[in-house]
């Protein structure tokens, strides 16, 4: 069932045999096609492995990737994507569920750890917190779509940058600014959502098992895909 994962591993190994230029050309195509994310994974990995095998044989005969796939790699990759069958709706739903579960797990554990560090390292705050269940639910409902949206933007950015020479400094600044803006958006959600009941008193340790359960659920979803 999960033959795609074997193909990915094999691809990782085989790719090392490519020359520097061919590897750069091929990896751009690979990342761009994989991140089209709405395509059948098995078919995607099969064609990527086909392309790699072809390039390796052509390379042995002294040909370059440009000679084999042309000098318009983006156009070529788009042509491939256009012919790939789509991902099943059920799989797509599982994919998004997995993403949300991983996000919630990371979020639960890191916010729990944050409080624990404040308490034990800096002697700040308390271990038992009053949690406004209503507020937490609303915050989560707002944060999940924001995170999905940020993830989407990031994927689009990586795809866009695949076939471009981007100034390293500019990229660093851009990513830095986006990071600050996203962080600001998260803080704003916490700041502006009003506190409302019901209130529960919860020891902060409880976030850890909750986070672990979410991680396990995410992991199980991933295995089903």
């Amino acid at each position, binding site marked *: 069932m999960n033959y795609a994962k074997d193909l990915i591993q094999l691809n990782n190994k085989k790719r090392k045999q490519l020359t520097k230029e061919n590897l750069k050309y091929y990896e751009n195509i690979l990342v761009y096609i994989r991140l089209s994310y709405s395509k059948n994974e098995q078919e995607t990995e099969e064609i990527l*492995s*086909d*392309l790699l*095998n*072809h390039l390796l044989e052509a390379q042995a005969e002294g040909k370059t990737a440009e*000679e084999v796939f*042309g000098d318009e790699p983006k156009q070529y990759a788009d042509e491939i994507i256009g*012919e790939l*069958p789509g991902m099943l709706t059920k799989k797509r739903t599982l994919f998004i569920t997995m993403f949300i579960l991983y996000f919630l797990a990371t979020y639960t554990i890191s916010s729990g750890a944050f409080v624990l560090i404040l308490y034990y390292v800096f002697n700040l705050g308390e271990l038992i917190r009053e949690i406004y269940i209503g507020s937490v639910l609303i915050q989560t409902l707002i944060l999940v779509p924001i995170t999905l949206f940020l993830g989407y933007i990031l994927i689009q950015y990586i795809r866009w940058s695949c076939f471009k020479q981007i100034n390293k400094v500019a990229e660093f600044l851009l990513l830095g600014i986006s990071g600050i803006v996203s962080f600001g958006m998260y803080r704003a959600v916490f700041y502006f959502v009003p506190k409302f009941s019901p209130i529960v008193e919860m020891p902060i340790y409880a976030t850890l098992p909750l986070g672990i359960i979410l991680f396990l659920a995410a992991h199980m979803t991933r295995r089903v895909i």
Partner: protein
Amino acid sequence: MALRSQLLKGILEGCILAIIARGSVYGYELSLRLQNYGLVVSEGSIYPILLRLQKELLIRGEIQDSPSGPNRKYYFLTEQGVAALQEFKKNWTDIKTPVDLLLSKED
């Protein structure tokens, strides 16, 4: 898309079916066969076509371990593929003779 490239694509599809009909091939092998017949196309251009032919169920791919390197995808013709090839052959003969005639009378 330009009529010219549409036409070429259709012909290339037919030729690929014809080659696969003579025995299963993997991608690189297929591009070599095409070149041996003097059909010089950019090697990479066969892959979008192979994907389309698979989607239309005219061919199917099977990953097999080969003696010279593991995990190659071999392509086979399906029954629908055989029928499509027959139709291509018929269309081709229907159009080939009149076009040849027309072009040769030009000068």
